Each structure stands twice: as C-alpha cells, then as structure tokens.
C-alpha cells in the first residue's frame, strides 16, 4: 500500500540537540529572509546584506564603525562609562546579573558605542546602539554617552550622527530610562544652537522611547530598508485595535510614504550618501 510509504513510524523529533549535525558556528550564515546560505566572510564583504534578497542583517557598532570610518581608523570615546544597578531591580533575574551576562556575551559595557573619525575626509562623531546588549535598550549609559558625544561634537565642531537600533527604554532603570528621552532631547537643542548637523539613522528595529526622542529629531531622519520603526510595538497595537496590521506597517518604506523619513539608504551606499550630506552641511564652515 502506497500510503504506508509516507507514514511516519516514530513521531516527533528524536534527534538529541547535542547530536544535531550542524556546521561549525561562524562559518556559514543562513539568510533569515530567503534562507540562502553564504559564508560569513562573503556576507561581511557584502556589508552583511544578503546578496540574493537584499535583507539587511542586524549589525552593531563593531561592524558599522569599520564600514564607515576611513581606513578603519576611529577613536572609541567614553568607554569608561559603565552601567550600575542603582535601583536593585529584580524581575525573573536581578538587573545586576543581566548586565554582567550581557557584558560577558558581547564584550561591551552597555548598548551604546561612540566613535569619532573621518568619513571620506570629513570628521564625524557617531553614537551607535548595540542591539546585542539587552535588546539595545536605552538606559542611563546610553543617554550619558549621547550627551557626551554631543559635547564632543560641539567642542570639535563636528557633525553628529546616531545609529538607532533598540527595543526602547530599559525597564530595569525605570524612570531613569524614561528621563534619557528628556536628557538627550535637551542636549540636542545645544547641538542645534551650535549650528551643527544631527543625522538620525534608524535601523531594524527602532521603537519605543528611542523613536519618541532622538531617533525622530534629526535634521535629516534616514533609515535602512525594511527596518521596523515605530512608537508602539506591532503586538501592542494589534492587541489594542484587535485587527491585523497591514503588511509593511511600520517599516521604513511606510514611514517614508507618511513623511517621517528624508530617505532610505542601502547599507552599501551609506558611506557615500553620508559624505554627500555632510559635505553640504559643513562646506565652508
């Protein structure tokens, strides 16, 4: 009987996780969008963008900085600012332990890295969020590093850019994380008074308090293709309105269409586009 050929004899997945045959970590990368496999080296050479479907993989400061700064030369600033658990916040795990785990797994101090260097010969300060550190959440260190990055830009008369990539405020810092929205916005008014440009670059994902403060306050607001950008998360909106959300909702293209982005830029064109813009702002100054 033919049908028995297709009948499963044993049910469920029986292979133990330890026995699963996987390629060694770090050699190959499977695109989460189109499932094409590339070597990680190929992917890195291609700006971590899938060569087949143009999916922009999530990357952090460690990848953006060498990609943007000339000759991979830049100075990391304010690395001495580290988080602490002033509130003694405990949910399923103490915040203190979360911080230590995140620091161990990422080698970072917190979710923000600030770098200064040249981009096609023009100086630039970039504050870049690291999504791998507690979801890129915005706590006191993120706010303080932005604040000092702005002071540095003013002192050296440099343009300032923030690369946003964040789930929003860091709940474990409670109202202190909320106030980072006020703090960063307040400091951005100083940058504006100094006549220096602020470029906000939004990448996947940019949500919550980050969107409702510095991400939306750029002299130009730009984004990577198909990045999720919004104030409320899609799940919360869906629960509130009890309807399915239209496809493409809260993606970069949707925001461009509704007038909240100046343009969308693919990662391979980012450096060139940035230098053109910076040139326009800074020429003759």
């Amino acid at each position: 009987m033919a049908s028995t050929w297709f009948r499963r004899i044993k049910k469920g997945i029986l292979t133990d996780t330890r026995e699963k045959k996987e390629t060694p970590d770090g050699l190959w990368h499977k695109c989460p969008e189109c499932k094409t496999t590339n070597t990680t080296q190929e992917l890195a050479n291609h700006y971590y963008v899938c060569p087949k479907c143009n999916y922009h993989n999530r990357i952090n400061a460690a990848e953006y900085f060498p990609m943007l700064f000339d000759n991979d030369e830049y100075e990391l600033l304010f690395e001495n600012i580290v988080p602490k658990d002033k509130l003694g916040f405990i949910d399923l795990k103490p915040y203190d332990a979360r911080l230590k785990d995140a620091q161990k797994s990422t080698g970072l101090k917190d979710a923000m890295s600030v770098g200064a260097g040249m981009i096609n010969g023009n100086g630039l300060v970039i504050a870049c969020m690291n999504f791998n550190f507690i979801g890129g959440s915005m706590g006191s260190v993120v706010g303080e590093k932005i604040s000092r990055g702005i002071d540095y830009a003013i002192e050296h008369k440099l343009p300032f850019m923030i690369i946003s990539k964040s789930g929003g405020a860091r709940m474990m810092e409670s109202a202190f994380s909320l106030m980072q929205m006020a703090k960063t916005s307040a400091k951005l008014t100083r940058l504006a008074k100094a006549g220096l440009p602020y470029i906000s670059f939004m990448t996947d994902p940019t949500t919550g308090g980050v969107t409702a403060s510095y991400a939306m306050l750029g002299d130009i607001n730009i984004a990577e293709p198909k990045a999720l950008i919004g104030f409320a998360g899609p799940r919360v909106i869906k629960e509130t309105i009890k309807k399915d959300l239209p496809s493409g909702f809260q993606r970069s293209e949707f925001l461009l269409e509704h007038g909240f982005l100046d343009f969308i830029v693919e990662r391979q064109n980012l450096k060139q586009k940035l230098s053109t813009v910076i040139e326009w702002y800074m020429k003759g100054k």
Partner: protein
Amino acid sequence: MQFLDFEKPLEELHNQMNKLKEMSAKNQVDVSATVRELETSIEKTREKIYTNLTPWQRVQLSRHPERPYTLYYIEKIFSNFTELYGDRQVKDDKAMVGGMAELDGMPVMVMGQQKGVNTKMRQLRNFGMANPEGYRKALRLMKMAEKFNRPIVTLIDTPGAYPGLEAEERGQGEAIARNLFEMVNLKVPVICIIIGEGASGGALGIGIGDKVVMLENTWYTVISPESCSSILWRSWNFKEKAAEQLKLTSEDMKGFNLVDDVLPEPVGGAHAKPEEMAAIIKTYLLGALANLNKLSPEQRIDQRIEKFSKMGFYDEVAE
C-alpha cells in the same frame, strides 16, 4: 462613594454609619453619640490605611474613578478659561484639552490629558490616551503662550500615548519627540504637574518644565506596572511586584531628583477633598511662578537643560 480593595475596613464603617442613620430616622432615637464615635473611628481608620500605602495602592489611587481630572482642576484653580481646539493639521484630540486662563488675574496657558467621567465620556476622551494630534495641539498652545509671554501649566494624567494604527501613521513618536525638544527651549516658565497617572512617553510629551511636580498619590515612570509585569515576568500577575520594583511613587521620584516637588494630598486622597487639593495646587503654582518670573528666559532654559542632563546613574571607571 467607591472604595478600593484596601479600603475595606473603611467601607464597613461607612455601611455601619448608613445603617445607623437609617435606623435612627425610622425609630426616631438619638444616635448622635454613636455617630460621633463612628466618625472618629472612620477618621482613625482612614489615617491608618493612608499612612502605610504600598506602591500598588498608590497606583490604584491615581486611577480612582472619583479622582479629579484636568478639567476639574482648571475650573477650580483658574478663571476665564477659554478652551482652544485642534492641531491645525488633522483634527481635535479630545484626550488632550487646553486653553487660555487666568491664575489670580495672571494670564496663563493651561493644558493636560483629560479622562472621561463616565463610560460614554471615557470613550470620547479615549481614556486619556492622546494621539499625535493631541501632542501637536499642546505644542501649538505652548508656542502661542511663548509668543505672548504667558507662563505654561501642564496637568499630566495618562495611562500612555495611544498605541493605535493611525497614531503610528501620523507619527506618534515624532510628535512626542518634537514636544520634548521644543519644550526645553520655551522662553516662558513651564510648570508640569502629575495629577494622576504619569505613564511613560505619553506623560513626558507634555512633561518638560522648570518645575515638574507630582501629587502625593500619583505615579510616574517608564511603563505601567501591568505591562512591566507582562514583559519582564511574562505574566500579568506580578503588577504589585512590578510597582514595587519600578519605584514609581512620588516619594521615590523626589528622592531620585527626577521630580522637583511633591504636593501632599488630603487624607483619603485627592478625591476625598478635591477642593482642598485644588487649593494646594493653586498655592504652589502662585509661589513657583513668582520665583520663576525672577529668572531670565535664558537662565530658565539653561537650568532646564542642566536639570535633565544630570538625570541618570552610571559609574566612571579607569579605562
């Protein structure tokens, strides 16, 4: 009168009192001595309950259905209120109200989130959750106040900015961000008072001021205890715990220097004696505005930036 779960002993005493009064009316006996006794006992019980409120109980109080809302305070504290509508772009947001008013003869601009007083009004007011047009209306009024050199008072009471589809289309994030940026730079004095719920960006969107003040039984933080419980504990059952961990009470917030002052509420909460509460707010406003008027616009703006720039905790280590 509506009683919260932790006010149970009070409710029982009130019931006793009602029964007693009923009985005395029916049988025409003099119960005045017992009534006085009960009254004292009610006052004592109330004081006992209210001196030991947990953070979650304060959250409950901030949402008490009889608690006075923005329009009540506007009517009690100010005179000649002229409500102004619309953001001049999309529509009028009923969750955010505001307009011209006078405070003891001094022209001011006043605004805030408005919750509904009954089921129908709650819907109309969208439960005090503003859309982008609400924040843009508020900013329009603030800019007008600045142009005509009038101080600004904002009254904050919101469970959050509305998380809706149209809100996102019209840029909820941008609207709040713009308000933060613009409020920092307002040349006129700005006083913000949290009169109920101070939930996250929706509250902060009209919350940048020279003085940010909380009424005693209000809360102000980055997320509601319920949502915090659902995200961090992955269950809705830890709201009391979340309220404790978030340190969201007026006392905590003043201790952290994240707000400038706390205004005491009458025993039993603002809703127990709303007129007394309004008088306390009015006295505070008059004093604070008199002090702020002594500073130049530049001084006020600088102090505002310095104040918010200091907020945050971190360590500085040797590299």
